[in-house]
């Protein structure tokens, strides 16, 4: 998949030395914070992006940053410097699915893996500029530890064969062949790599190490069972030939 460019707010100064002639710069980002509605938002977002980077899922990149309230998640703004893309409309779903079948399949499987109940329109995709292909998903505040009202119930849900993501914009538009490819690909991702995505080695905001380990184990189990989950709920996912 084509790598998107990110917004660069300004180039500050070149570093003094180095053959790569690196420069300091600032990047534009959307800051996400924990809230009453999503008490583990920051943890969810960073784990989601780590998993996506491990499995090469087309998510908008992001980093942890520090604010006066503690760590927050900075989701990097997409598209060229200056003007951002709009969020996908419902009426654009078929066009997006046709233009980015592989990315769509990857996203569907990823959302099933992390139990993302709220993909909704949280996708940005270029549709009219063929030489600048961009497809990136964002916002994972309603997945992982926030599937249900408590982290314990959320982790328990991930350990089952429930689909969890009972609604998804690309159900009915995803290619069956590509869906199977991505299921196999994620299912074969080494468990150690998946676990490392959920671990911080220390308590992270309201998520202690025990909870991180439980989520890590649940994600490994779910990844290994992905084929069964997808097969069981094929009538909901409705993959197309």
């Amino acid at each position, binding site marked *: 998949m084509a790598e998107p460019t990110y917004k660069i707010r300004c180039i500050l100064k070149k570093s003094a030395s180095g053959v790569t002639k690196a420069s300091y710069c600032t990047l534009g980002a959307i800051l996400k914070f924990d809230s009453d509605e999503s008490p583990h938002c920051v943890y969810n977002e960073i784990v989601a992006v780590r998993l996506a980077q491990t499995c090469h899922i087309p998510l908008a990149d992001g980093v942890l940053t520090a604010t006066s309230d503690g760590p927050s998640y900075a989701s990097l*703004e997409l*598209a*060229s*410097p*200056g*003007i*951002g*893309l*709009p*969020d996908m*409309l*419902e*009426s*654009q779903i078929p066009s997006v699915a046709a233009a980015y079948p592989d990315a769509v399949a990857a996203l569907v499987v990823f959302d099933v893996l992390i139990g993302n109940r709220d993909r909704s329109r949280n996708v940005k995709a*270029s*549709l*009219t*500029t*063929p*030489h*600048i292909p961009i497809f990136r998903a964002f916002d994972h505040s309603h997945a992982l530890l926030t599937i249900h009202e408590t982290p314990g119930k959320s982790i328990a849900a991930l350990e089952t064969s429930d689909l969890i993501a009972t609604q998804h914009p690309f159900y009915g538009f995803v290619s069956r062949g590509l869906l199977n490819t991505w299921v196999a690909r994620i299912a074969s991702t080494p468990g150690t790599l998946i676990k490392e995505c959920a671990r911080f080695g220390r308590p992270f905001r309201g998520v202690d190490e025990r909870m991180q380990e439980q989520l890590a184990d649940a994600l490994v189990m779910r990844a290994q069972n992905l084929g069964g989950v997808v097969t069981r709920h094929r009538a909901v996912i409705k993959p197309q030939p």
Partner: protein
Amino acid sequence: MMLNYWVIQFVPDPLRGEGRNVAIITHDGERASLRALGLDRNGRVDLGPFTTLAGKHAPSAWVYGEWVRWFEDLSLYEGKSVERLNAILNDVATQGLYFTALPAGTVDTPKSASLEQVTSWLFKRLVGKVKRPLSRIFDSEVEEAITRSKIALRTEFMRDVEVEILAESDAPPTLLRFAFLLDERPRIGFKVVRPHAGITSYGRQVNDAIYTFDKAVTAGFLERSRCLVFTKKPSGGRVPLIEMLSRSAVVVDVSFPDAWKTIRAAIGSH
């Protein structure tokens, strides 16, 4: 007939918050209609006018084309109800800093006027035309020809290319510059002669193009039939210069709507 309408603004500096009107959406209670800067009746978007008013954001003007497509899809497929349209347009400003939709209100129109006529009238009043420097128009015409020919979709298509032709003897290599290059065999090289330059600069550009193509052909880098120059029909003292150039290259007048076909013809045998 009472119509609801919204003004779409581009906000080049979100800190200042000053918007430039770029589009109008209207709704007559049953359906929506859109007029946007650069959008023609066939649904094609000329990015030139927006590029002109985009200022420092000109390099990302292509994103405007995506937004126009977004507003078109919104009007056509999701604009059945005023309430739904309003809800989505209210959300535009939350999707980024640079576009916003202002609910401008209602307008009372004669029953004989169609929705499209009223939308066009509002567009003329509230958006109008963007005055563009001649050089910007030429640039957009060059881009239009490139886009319509689809040469830019080729993986070996490059912009601002420098080619080093090595000499057989100990002589220094020859450096040639091309505005665009399709590096697939057989190659196609492009130069640009800017038509609005002063006569001296114009002559220099022509000489440079002749030199470049002659060197490229002699070295076997290009075939004569695949040396293309983008320019416009000359007048006065520039005519003999272009006639001289036409002996070294295919001259493409980008102000002709079919200019892209000349590029396609050169690609044709690929």
